């Protein structure tokens, strides 16, 4: 583009900024009050360079607003679910805007394409990529804004630009100070510069230093609003009776008793069950037991029982698949499996991980209200964009007529990527003609999840005559997640229904990352990448009993971290080598992971005496572009596993908010420890057996270990922290149990009896 063309576009863009459609647009986003409003076209921004903000086709988009009152609003494009983006992204923005993060007012946003995740093209929060993908674009945008405010000040004060400095939200010139807001109006009429230089690390004031969470006060006083807290006049509560076997539908129902229960306003049948709408939740819930529903059961899943030992059922289904010749190749390096024929020794073992529920503390819920053809929904979810489209479909309204009000999420962990509760709430509101808040009970939540897929895998590790790994081969059997993700949107069964970007996103995940793969990458991720070997192969055989599966914190890594690290331990011990030293030997091509291992061994005192009866186990794993080592200190008494301490070293590049990185490591470790020690969802005749925290227990405070987290100093770009803390923990504990007892536990959850 020539300079003249650029100038033309600048002018055009300026006009766009001023015209009324933009104002409407901003109003639709819930942004009112004027002042300087800026957005960034994050969409499709795969490289670190900002796309041309002056592109004439640019839809205005809005992330930042500075009012004449000097209120600085940041419209948070990602969902805050505990992982800390509310603080993290604000810190990133604040750095280049030169304002203390605490002075920025952060708003949860509704659904709009402009809030798309740069990597997915969807308004999705997941995959531990929020900080990584916004790190440069947000800073560039903020730097441009700071520049335009300086330019406005220069114009107004009639001073050269270089005499206009900034300090914590103030313009500083001639020894005087003015708030940014004093120039916001003028700045709004200037063209936004594009490529203002961004700061060097050595100039950072907040990045790497600021750690105070900006949502702590609200969350410590009960004033943070979650989906369940939504309230307005005329709101009714709904409870839904769903088929015990997931995927079942209503054949017939008798609501005569339920209708006469106190407070009940309506009983309606929707796509997956029968709902009771009442004045209060306890009334709706009380009516469910007297609601008589006959179900049309889904065939495949109804025949499945976890404890069945029959061929083609239970674990045997996975085992048969693994033992069959069938397999799709997911990865091949060197001669792959063929190299086994020339190995000196082959070490094999088979591992198992069960289905798991997410069990977010806040059960699923959604509030829906129709006003004529307008539909509003309130929910905390990980992808408001898909929620809006689902709502439009189930509400039978145009997508433009749907408004999403986002709240904080009482935990996400991947569960709130699916929006089944949105489809349900909208369907109930539509059928009953009432504004409803659908509340899931804990039992609903446990029994109607998109579960972490159960998985079986077999390793065959070929060793050379020196006992070093020559070939690393693994085969996995289990369900793929992608079809279920697609299912939610494809459920609507209309061609135009797929959200823009979804198709892209899927092909991206499938192909741009791993060229030529035919397997859902999350099915095999983490099973084979970390260690050096001359030959590698990863194979996959799909087997699926039909229980819906989804993204569960760290996804494939949630099982592969355990499998791979237990296997590595087996090999090291068989070779009578120290597990740390043997791992280091095979991490020559993975120096950052090796470094975390060295540091962790040092920190934990690996090889040094421990209290009597205590043993160390180690595991390393890289995921979401971060590198983590964990060393668990464990004792076993009468079959009881006690985890005393976990030492964790993480290399996540530059840590934007170091304390939040530590929190996220602790969080991942405790989440993973719950899975390692207790987590198991089983199925009987197609129905999930577990129901609440008594039979699907969570780690409690007295069971949680001391945790020490060390962050590797790094100048590399920031990478994920929400998930990478989880994958190593089960392996570290399992390996410590082996050290303590000589027993190798190859199934999760870890049980000695």
């Amino acid at each position, binding site marked *: 583009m020539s300079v003249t063309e650029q100038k033309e576009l600048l002018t055009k863009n300026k006009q766009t900024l001023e015209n009324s459609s933009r104002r409407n647009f901003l109003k639709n986003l819930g942004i009112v009050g004027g002042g300087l409003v800026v957005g960034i076209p994050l969409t499709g921004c795969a490289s670190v360079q900002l796309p041309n903000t002056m592109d004439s086709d640019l839809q205005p988009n809005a992330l930042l607003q500075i009012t004449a009152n000097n209120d600085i609003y940041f419209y948070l494009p990602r969902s805050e679910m505990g992982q800390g983006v509310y603080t993290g992204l604000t810190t990133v923005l604040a750095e280049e805007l030169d304002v203390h993060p605490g002075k920025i007012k952060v708003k949860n946003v509704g659904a709009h394409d402009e809030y798309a995740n740069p990597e997915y093209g969807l308004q999705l929060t997941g995959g531990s990529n929020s900080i990584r993908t916004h790190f440069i674009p947000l800073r560039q945008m903020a730097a441009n804004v700071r520049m335009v405010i300086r330019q406005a000040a220069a114009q107004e004060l009639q001073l050269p630009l270089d005499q206009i400095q900034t300090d914590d939200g103030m313009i500083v010139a001639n020894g005087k100070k003015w708030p940014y807001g004093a120039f916001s109006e003028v700045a709004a009429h200037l063209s936004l510069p594009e490529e203002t230089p961004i700061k060097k690390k050595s100039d950072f004031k907040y990045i790497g230093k600021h750690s105070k969470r900006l949502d702590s006060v609200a969350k410590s006083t009960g004033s943070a609003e979650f989906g369940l807290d939504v*309230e307005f006049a005329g709101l009714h509560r709904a409870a839904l009776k769903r088929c015990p076997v997931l995927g079942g539908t209503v054949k017939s129902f008798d609501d005569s008793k339920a209708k006469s229960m106190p407070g009940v306003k309506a009983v309606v049948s929707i796509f997956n069950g029968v709902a009771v709408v009442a004045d209060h939740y306890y009334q709706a819930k009380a009516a469910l037991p007297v609601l008589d529903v006959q179900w049309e059961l889904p065939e495949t899943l109804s025949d499945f029982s976890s404890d069945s030992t029959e061929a083609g059922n239970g674990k045997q289904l996975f085992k048969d698949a693994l033992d069959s010749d069938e397999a799709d190749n997911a990865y091949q390096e060197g001669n792959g499996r063929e190299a086994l024929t020339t190995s000196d020794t082959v070490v094999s073992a088979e591992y198992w991980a069960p289905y798991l529920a997410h069990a977010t503390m806040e059960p699923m819920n959604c509030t829906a209200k129709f006003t004529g053809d307008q539909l509003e929904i309130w929910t905390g979810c990980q992808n408001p964009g898909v929620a809006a489209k689902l709502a439009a479909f189930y509400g039978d309204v145009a997508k433009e007529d749907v408004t999403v009000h986002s709240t904080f999420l*009482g*935990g996400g962990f991947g569960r709130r990527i699916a929006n089944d509760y949105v489809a349900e709430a909208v369907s109930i509101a539509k059928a009953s003609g009432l504004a409803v808040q659908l509340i899931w009970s*804990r039992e609903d939540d446990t029994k109607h999840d998109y579960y972490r897929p159960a998985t079986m895998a077999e390793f065959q590790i070929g060793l050379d005559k020196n006992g070093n790994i020559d070939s690393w081969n693994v085969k996995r059997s289990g369900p793929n997640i992608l079809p279920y993700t697609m299912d939610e949107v494809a459920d609507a069964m209309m061609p135009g229904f797929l959200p823009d970007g979804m198709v892209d996103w899927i092909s991206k995940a499938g192909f741009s990352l791993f060229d030529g793969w035919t397997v859902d990458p999350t099915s095999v991720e983490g099973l084979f990448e970390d260690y050096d070997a001359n030959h590698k192969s990863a194979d996959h055989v799909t087997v699926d009993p039909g229980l819906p599966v989804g993204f569960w914190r760290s996804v494939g890594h949630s099982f592969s971290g355990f499998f791979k690290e237990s296997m590595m331990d087996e090999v090291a011990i068989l070779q009578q080598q120290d597990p740390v030293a043997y791992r280091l030997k095979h991490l020559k091509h993975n120096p950052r992971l090796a470094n975390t291992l060295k540091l962790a061994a040092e920190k934990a005192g690996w090889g040094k005496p421990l209290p009597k009866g205590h043993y160390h186990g180690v595991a390393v794993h890289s995921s979401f572009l971060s590198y983590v080592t964990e060393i668990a200190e464990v004792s076993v008494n009468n079959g009881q596993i006690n985890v005393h301490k976990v030492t964790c070293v993480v290399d996540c590049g530059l840590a934007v908010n170091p304390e939040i990185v530590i929190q996220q490591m602790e969080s991942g470790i405790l989440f993973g420890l719950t899975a390692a020690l207790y987590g198991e969802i089983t199925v009987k005749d197609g129905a999930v057996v577990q129901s609440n925290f008594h039979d699907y227990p969570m780690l409690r405070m007295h069971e949680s270990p*001391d945790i020490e987290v060390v962050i590797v100093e790094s100048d590399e770009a920031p990478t994920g922290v929400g998930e990478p803390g989880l994958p190593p923990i089960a392996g570290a504990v399992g390996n410590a149990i082996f050290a303590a007892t000589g027993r190798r536990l190859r199934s999760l959850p870890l049980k000695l009896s």
Partner: protein
Amino acid sequence: MISFKLNGQTVNVDAPGDTPLLWVVREHLTLKGTKFGCGMGLCGACSMLIDGVSSRTCIMPVQAVANRNITTIEGIGNPQMMSTLQNAWVETDVPQCGYCQSGQIISATALLSQNNNPSDNDIDIAMSGNLCRCGTYPNVKKAIKRAAADLRKGKGRLQVVQVFDPTANASPETQGVQS
């Protein structure tokens, strides 16, 4: 009509006697700080102080609290005026998703009202009824110790908000207020 004291004010509620206190407070009185997590007394998200004792209100029939003193998170402090524990919570950056935190703070308040120098074990015992799926336990522990140290030095108090005005937020079922 059942009457009890909520955050210092008497409230009268027209709800069946077996209605769990949690839903009376959340839906009839529209105080949303106390959360619903399990409905079986297993997670502690619904904790309120009943005469100073941290209690699971999802299984507490409202008739059982007639004429008793109930304190919710809103009665502990608010963003403008936080209790010592809430300050320690913010200083320690305890909350992650935040959903369990009202319950955690209620249980910690009950603990510190009895013991201003709790050991790790005392904390474990007092807090074992409060689940946190995000794994904030290490910071919960730190914050409790920090608040206890402040209280021992005579800094701050366990409860700063005494009065709740349900008329400000009343739903139709709220039948008036007596002091």
